[in-house]
């Protein structure tokens, strides 16, 4: 089945124009959004500040549900940790120590070896003022980088990066989410960024292979944005255009690179592998996004949390082995986050309820490894009235550092304010 290859949204519209010429009397039906694409296209990708390499990649790993930070990076010297967690505390002897104060959960053995190699930065006690304990509101705050009450940003912090620092980029694949629900973090005014579940289903299939009738041309024409159209149909046609434009690029990239690394047989590792393939196959994406759920451990936390941490740790480890093999480990920075940590004191169900501050991991060959910030105090007078930790580092400092130092973007403009940078990137 021969299909015309189209690379940018401009080309698509033009092609659509040609296809539909017979049907329309109006000379043009470019939409508002598409007009904005008329700037000359720089296929390189995102424009960055001088001095920052243009081929850097950010991978965001979302731990959905509220990861128990206290059982991830464990402050084993703090008595309150053991006093409040008679069922869930990890015994000192099995903790993978980073220093005399803190250590990893034993399920993070692979992450520990990455740490020992100098690939991992641990940022302690990350949160924001007046913490919100709703999954949905707190996730929204992390995605939009705006904790202001009553204020909901329409676009995400990464989406705003696409919008503000990317005046000429035209490929929807600049941001790729693995899965079927794109995160708010990636939402941009320009509508860039795609989601895909598997390369096999990321394509349109004609049911009959009849060379005399090229259904695909009709399909393109009927899915091309129409000038003046608004509402859900306009949105649908724009999404269709992004999907059609990215389909072949994604499948080509994936088929160009075959990994020789053995990944664990988990869904999370499968997603990491797909990202490694797209990086290896030179898709030209700047930000990849993936999520793993199940961290809302209100009950029977022990086994569940252990299994989740194992999946994350092993998946990330295989991913970096793969990047090493590709020679791309220097180009990639991976960041983990969750909407909140969990309460210090465990509940009667062998679980923990929603909490506040928690650690983040920054992983990559190019970072300055180490431990940033101090663990929040667990003493009763240092906790808030609900019994949760006070955050030490604002998450927007982490974002600002990544935006400015890794992606070379104007972090003040994107975050709407200045945040102190952390030295995990120099």
């Amino acid at each position: 089945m021969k299909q015309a290859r189209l690379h940018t949204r401009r080309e698509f519209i033009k092609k659509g124009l040609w296809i539909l010429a017979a049907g329309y009397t109006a000379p043009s039906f470019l939409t508002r959004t598409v007009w904005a694409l008329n700037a000359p296209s720089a296929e390189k990708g995102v424009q960055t500040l001088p001095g920052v390499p243009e081929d850097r990649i950010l991978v965001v790993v979302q731990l959905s549900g509220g990861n128990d930070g206290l059982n991830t990076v464990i402050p084993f010297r703090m008595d309150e940790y053991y006093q409040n967690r008679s069922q869930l505390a990890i015994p000192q002897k099995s903790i993978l120590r980073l220093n005399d104060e803190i250590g990893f959960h034993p399920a993070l053995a692979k992450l520990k070896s990455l740490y020992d190699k100098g690939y991992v930065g641990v940022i302690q006690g990350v949160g924001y003022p007046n913490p919100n304990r709703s999954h949905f509101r707190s996730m929204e705050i992390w995605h939009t980088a705006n904790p202001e009450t009553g204020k909901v940003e329409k676009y995400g912090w990464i989406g705003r990066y696409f919008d503000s620092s990317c005046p000429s980029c035209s490929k929807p694949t600049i941001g790729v989410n693995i899965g079927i629900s794109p995160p708010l973090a990636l939402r941009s005014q320009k509508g860039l960024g795609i989601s895909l579940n598997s390369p096999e289903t990321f394509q349109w299939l004609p049911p009959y292979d009849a060379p005399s009738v090229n259904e695909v041309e009709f399909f393109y024409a009927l899915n091309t944005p129409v000038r003046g159209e608004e509402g859900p149909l306009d949105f649908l046609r724009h999404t269709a255009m992004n999907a059609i434009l990215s389909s072949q690029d994604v499948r080509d990239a994936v088929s160009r690179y075959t990994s020789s690394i053995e990944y664990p047989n988990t869904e999370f590792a499968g997603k990491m592998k797909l990202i490694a393939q797209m990086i290896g196959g030179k898709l030209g994406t700047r930000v990849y996004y993936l999520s793993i759920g199940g961290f809302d451990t209100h009950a029977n936390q022990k086994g569940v949390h252990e299994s989740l941490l194992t999946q994350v740790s092993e998946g990330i480890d295989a991913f970096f082995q793969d990047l090493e093999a590709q020679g791309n480990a220097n180009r990639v920075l991976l960041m983990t986050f969750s909407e909140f940590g969990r309460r210090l004191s465990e509940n009667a169900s062998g679980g923990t309820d929603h909490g506040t501050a928690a650690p983040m991991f920054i992983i990559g060959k190019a970072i300055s490894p180490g431990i940033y910030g101090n663990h929040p105090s667990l003493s009763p007078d240092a906790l808030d009235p609900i019994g949760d930790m006070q955050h030490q580092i604002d998450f927007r400092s982490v974002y600002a550092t990544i935006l400015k130092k890794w992606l070379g973007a104007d972090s003040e403009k994107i975050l709407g304010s200045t945040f102190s940078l952390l030295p995990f990137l120099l």
Partner: protein
Amino acid sequence: MTIASAEGWVRAGSLESYKPDSSNPWDKYKAAHLLNRAGFGGKPEEVEHLVKIGYEKSIDEIVNYEKFTEDFPEVDFSEVDRLKKELLEKRTAQALGFGQKPRDDPEFRKLFQELQRANRQAMAESVSLWIRRMIQTRRPLQEKMTLFWHGHLTSSARDVENARHMHQQNEFFRKNALGNFREILIGISRDPAMLRYLDNNTSRKEHPNENYARELMELFSMGIGNYTDEDVKQAARAFTGWTFERFGDEFIFRPPWHDYGEKTFLGRAGNFDGTDIIDIILEQPVTARFISRKLFEFFAYPNPEPELIEQMAGIFRENHYELKPLVRAILQSEAFYSDKAYRTQIKSPVQLVVGTIRLLGLEGIPERLLWLAMSLMGQELYAPPNVKGWDGGEAWINTSTLFLRYNFAYFVVTGKLPGAQDSPRGKGLEGRLLRTLSRFSSTFTPLKLIPKSQTPEETVDTLIDRLIQAKINEPERDKLVEFARKIQISSSSEPPDEAVKQIIHLILCLPEYQVC
């Protein structure tokens, strides 16, 4: 996309009853709209029926669905029951000191695996039966409301892992679909699937589990910002001891687990239990607004006008939280028939799949495959993505799911579902099911949907009428006609089935088909 009958659409933002008149008639477009939103789409003859009986009788038929009898089979739990009984007997024997510990006993393990298999089978049967109901029911609004409650008072089989509990919950939603909201809140707080899903089953006075109390307020009744974290803690105390029997299927209250102390909740103090908490929640003016708004958005359009919300909340409270008067008011309002509502809703995957099967009159597709198709598109029945349910609206559509929707069109005409075997739910599908499909695809004869001797224009219009149920833009229609000509639809000879299938395929791949 222009509005179907250009003149005669009515005011958005008004809860006044829509009154048909000559400039604003009750026609096939409005009837189709009602059938789409209050159900899963109507076939041309169903639309015609409503046009014929008139607007008021149509609303009556939709809302007073009890008068239609239904006859669906029961889900067979006998295998689950048998295995559970055997396992429990073995377990009791072991507890009494006979034999090995369950974990070390190969026979016990084998039985346990069999039970898990039987449970999965029953789960699939329960969902399949629900999908069959949605397709065949004479009470579409009842099934639509069942879907609403499943997305609002969510529980997921991934955590519940008990087919009977999920099935019971589904039956509870169906029975109370248009019932009383207070009874629904009390019932769901005692529902084993919910108790398990939000962990209240293990909540005790020593360290109450806050999961249920928080979501009850944040998602199920009031919405965020109308209570404090301290209210969550206090409400959690009130629900301690609400659980279900271990290995059983019924709610029980365990007094030794319950916190009988005084609680302070939303400014009131007393020795409250769960029912008191629900009653205090229902005293808050915000509750009626929150639920009215969510229902209106489900049926009509997002972000309803504040006055509209106030009016709906008033109706809801005046009727002591009875749902029927409220839903009726929404379905007969001017707002519901306004251009703000008409064809502005992106179909959910359930709406898309069930509707397509209904409108094309497809038979013989195993419901498990339809379940899989919906899941691939982002709506897995019995497994909402999180406690908030499905966001709906534009959140249904992204580059991934749009292709998956178009792949469903491919499935409809070829019987092959791309991605089926690779998906977690598809992995368990046996070859038998997939073979059924190839049989189905050879029996799908779309020719019967179009009258004989039609021109390409007539053929396209007939299919648009059936599938889109609205007028579409001329250029798009022309494009479809051009395609029909190209694949040799003509009035002089009967077109090949494949040609008709191909037009259907292209129509199902239209953005216009994704909305209703």
